């Protein structure tokens, strides 16, 4: 932002050297906490996410390129609130929140309220984000993240995050959020709602994919036309959910 002259802050505070903020861990209650200095690369290599949080595990290797992932952080990416940022969608689909700390102590802000618009977040000027918290799943977590990029390291043309929890074959909770198809990260709540309380079937998947496409507000630009991007949302939503349905059928 500074190099592009979008921002020229008088002072920068480097949080990299603050000890013990590089963690990501799972608490006894099943919630996952990611510290402010935990890098994308740490999440990409995480065995915890690989076994416990499929949507995050799917997204981590798709953010930027391997060297950029050595420095960039999940919390920084959510703070950055880029409509093309991958983590804000993943965190929105998971109903995650950001813990902010300021002179009056800590408060927790749901990511969907935290991301206010392009490059705007809900932090007060005297607050920092210390961690992201993904609430414990309400069942067996499943999901995925799909992203179309023109080349490695490019921002998404379109990204779709799907995170569901299942009890048996019933979907007990669902979240769907979209990257790069609106003025901010887009929560596709109607699409998620269409899945909740029902089993995954080709019908419910079709309905959710259609509603997700309707929730997108893409613009035509150098990455593609609005229609193309809307179609990608439909296809990605359906592809992730169909994959989950297949693995359910195979397990049965």
């Amino acid at each position, binding site marked *: 932002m500074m*190099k592009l002259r979008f921002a020229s802050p008088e002072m920068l505070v*480097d949080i990299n050297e603050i000890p013990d903020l590089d963690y990501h861990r799972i608490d006894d209650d099943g919630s996952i906490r990611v510290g402010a200095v935990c890098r994308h690369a740490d999440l990409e290599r995480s065995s915890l996410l690989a076994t416990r949080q499929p949507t995050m595990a799917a997204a981590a290797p798709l953010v930027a390129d*391997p*060297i*950029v992932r050595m*420095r960039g952080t999940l919390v920084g990416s959510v703070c950055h609130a880029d409509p093309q940022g991958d983590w804000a969608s993943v965190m929105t689909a998971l109903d995650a929140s950001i813990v902010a700390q300021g002179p009056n102590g800590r408060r927790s802000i749901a990511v969907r309220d935290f991301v206010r618009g392009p490059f705007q977040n809900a932090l007060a000027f005297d607050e920092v984000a210390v961690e992201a918290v993904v609430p414990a799943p309400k069942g067996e977590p499943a999901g995925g993240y799909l992203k179309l990029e023109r080349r490695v390291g490019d921002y998404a043309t379109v990204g779709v995050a799907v995170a569901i929890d299942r009890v048996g074959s019933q979907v007990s909770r669902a979240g769907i959020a979209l990257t790069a198809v609106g003025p901010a990260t887009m929560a596709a709540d109607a699409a998620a709602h269409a899945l909740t309380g029902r089993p995954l079937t080709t019908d419910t998947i079709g309905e959710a994919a259609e509603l997700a496409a309707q929730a997108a507000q893409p613009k035509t630009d150098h990455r593609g036309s609005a229609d193309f991007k809307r179609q990608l949302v439909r296809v990605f939503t359906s592809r992730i959910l169909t994959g989950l349905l297949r693995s359910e059928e195979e397990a049965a």
Partner: protein
Amino acid sequence: MTSLFQEITPGAAQEIPVREITVMVNGERRSAVVEPRLALAHLLRQGFKLTGTHTGCDTSNCGACTVLVDGRPVKSCTMFAVQADGHDVMTVEGLAGPSELHALQEGFKEEHGLQCGFCTPGMMMASKALLDENPSPTEDEIRWALSGNLCRCTGYQNIVKAVMWAASKLDGGDTEPAEVDS
């Protein structure tokens, strides 16, 4: 002590809040007085005259400026020089021994892994980080590790071969020309 803004008149320099930093560069302790906004890439090039580190884009896209910071690959245009204070930095100049090229440098020479050479320092440093962690990578793993480094000349084939050559040399193995899928 390197002062990076020698060209600024002493009066003006006083108005700029400068910091004194000490960085281990290629095993040598180096100090510098820098503006906080200075990128590490520019400290290396202009301050320490280590011009092997190239800057192609200055926006963290191309990877030409890749160096190792505490052993991890970092695009040095992404980091401020002050953030390297107290840390260990290795640039392409740190690869060769006093009389011998590093296996990666030899590999790039043997396999014709460069044309204009602009991307090469970054390619080598990213490859060094890979080989330090994974001494016998597959072709896919090499392509993955170098996917944040752009080359406008070679089409990448010979770069991948060069890294395979270096891996097998470091492994004490033979250095027959590597085969890669095209």
